[in-house]
């Protein structure tokens, strides 16, 4: 089953439709897939994300979430229930001054019963490992913790798709690790479809599939390894390789015979093999 389908979608922020932010995108995302979307600032990544859960509606073409057309207003509520979204700035997503009240916001909106909301809060906070902060105030939490609360707020609606719009951009390395752990676990253990928009190539490596956007179009699409093997092309879209892959490529170019490596661990393993031989 396709979780998300884009059919030649165009979207422009301008009234007259010029300089579209998303320009003729056709895309299918399967349920359960972990997709990373890469691209420069202003390449249309965030617009693409907002088209999925009907925060934006296409000027032309069609976006379907589990077969439901986002343009049909009757679907909006159901679509937003199935496709939750976490944003970039951890400070701008919380509505309440207490963690549990904030997580309750979504379930309240979809009209769940009191007991059910209580269960959802418990489940969602446990899924992000923040149970002990249930009665804390978000203002006193770290960036990574705030973002995990934002994820819990989305989880409480129990969506099948989670969209993260540069949700790791403002975090420190530890916060980023925390968030990545959570979303990887959601994908693995609950089969949740993940759409991760990011500038960090190392994060894209952890996805099943990577998509590169450039000037509103999808220009590359494949497994992260396939994408990062095409480094020349990547460069024309102003993107870089993960650092380990970059070092690996330099070594290969200098004549060292090692297989492609993308992480520090993989690279070290390759080098060990090569040095043992030499």
């Amino acid at each position: 089953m396709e979780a998300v389908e884009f059919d030649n979608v165009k979207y422009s922020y301008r009234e007259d439709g010029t300089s579209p932010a998303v320009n003729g995108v056709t895309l299918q995302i399967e349920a359960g897939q972990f997709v990373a979307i890469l691209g420069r600032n202003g390449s249309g990544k965030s617009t693409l994300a907002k088209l999925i859960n009907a925060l934006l509606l296409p000027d032309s073409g069609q976006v379907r979430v589990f077969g439901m057309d986002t343009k049909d207003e009757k679907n909006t509520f159901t679509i937003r229930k199935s496709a939750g979204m976490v944003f970039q700035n951890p400070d701008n997503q919380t509505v309440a001054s207490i963690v549990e009240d904030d997580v309750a916001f979504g379930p309240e909106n979809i009209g769940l019963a009191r007991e059910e909301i209580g269960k959802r809060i418990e489940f969602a906070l446990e899924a992000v490992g923040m149970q002990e902060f249930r009665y804390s105030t978000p203002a006193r939490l770290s960036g990574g913790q705030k973002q995990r609360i934002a994820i819990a707020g989305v989880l409480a609606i129990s969506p099948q798709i989670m969209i993260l719009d540069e949700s790791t951009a403002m975090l420190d390395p530890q916060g980023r690790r925390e968030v990545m752990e959570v979303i990887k676990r959601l994908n693995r253990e609950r089969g949740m479809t993940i759409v991760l928009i990011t500038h960090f190539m190392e994060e894209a490596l952890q996805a099943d599939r990577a998509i590169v956007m450039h000037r509103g179009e999808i220009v590359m699409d494949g497994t992260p390894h396939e994408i990062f093997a095409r480094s020349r092309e990547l460069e024309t879209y102003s993107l870089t390789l993960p650092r380990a892959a970059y070092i690996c490529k330099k070594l290969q170019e200098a004549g060292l015979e090692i297989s492609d490596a993308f992480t520090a661990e993989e690279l070290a393993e390759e080098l060990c093999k090569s040095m043992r031989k030499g």
Partner: protein
Amino acid sequence: MLNDVTFGQYYPTKSFVHSMDPRAKLVLTIAYIVAIFLADNFFGLAAVILFLALAVIFSRVPFGSVLRSVKMILFIIVFTAILNLFFYTAGEELHVLWQWKIIVISWEAIINMVFLALRLFLLVMGTSVLTLTTTPVALTDGIESLLTPLKWIRFPVHELALIMSIALRFIPTLVDETNRIVSAQKARGADFETGGLIRRAKAMIPVLVPLLVSAFRRAEDLGDAMDARCYSGSKGRTKYKKLKFTWRDALGVLLLAGLITGIVFLNLYFGGKFAILNYFFSA
């Protein structure tokens, strides 16, 4: 970084007062304020102090934290107290202590000053017990619930309550942001400390504009985040925290009813605040 907005800041713990219904606490606070102004002599205020002490003890908020809220308006208390001390002239017969031209200090003025300062002090202490033990969310829920009858005249009660709770939620964020912008502009040589009123007001522009821009950006983000979490107004919305009156609330109401009755009797029995003077001076 912690910021200094304790006035109206929740103190997270579990206690008798914390678990009371916010509506009850709101009504009790209003009644408490009435009691303060009803009390006409020091015995009445002593009864109020006793009630307040009970409230603080059963809220399990450290006394220091409650006291901090007074610190913020200490200046106002002292200022009005001093004005009253020097310029109290009401009443027919004054027991004058000291006089210089139009400035008269009398026993009445001293009593009046102490009385007034005590009233203000109790007022702030009491209301901060409310805000320290009630989350802003619960508080707005309480207000929303108390205002529900207004829905009949199409007053947007739910929206108003939501606006209030979001505003409360963003106060610490915006305070931090303000500090950050002030530092950044200071680093660019901005001077907020010298010059006259107009110059200082003008110097605030490089802080206010970015703050406003940022507030709009945050509002836009928050709007998206609320939409994404299926917000569509009060229709079909449920509430996680259902307000329920319990025996605690009943006990609170009972105690306060007792307080007010007691004050009325104390007023009748001992008379006004100056009655003690008669006791001293007639003897």
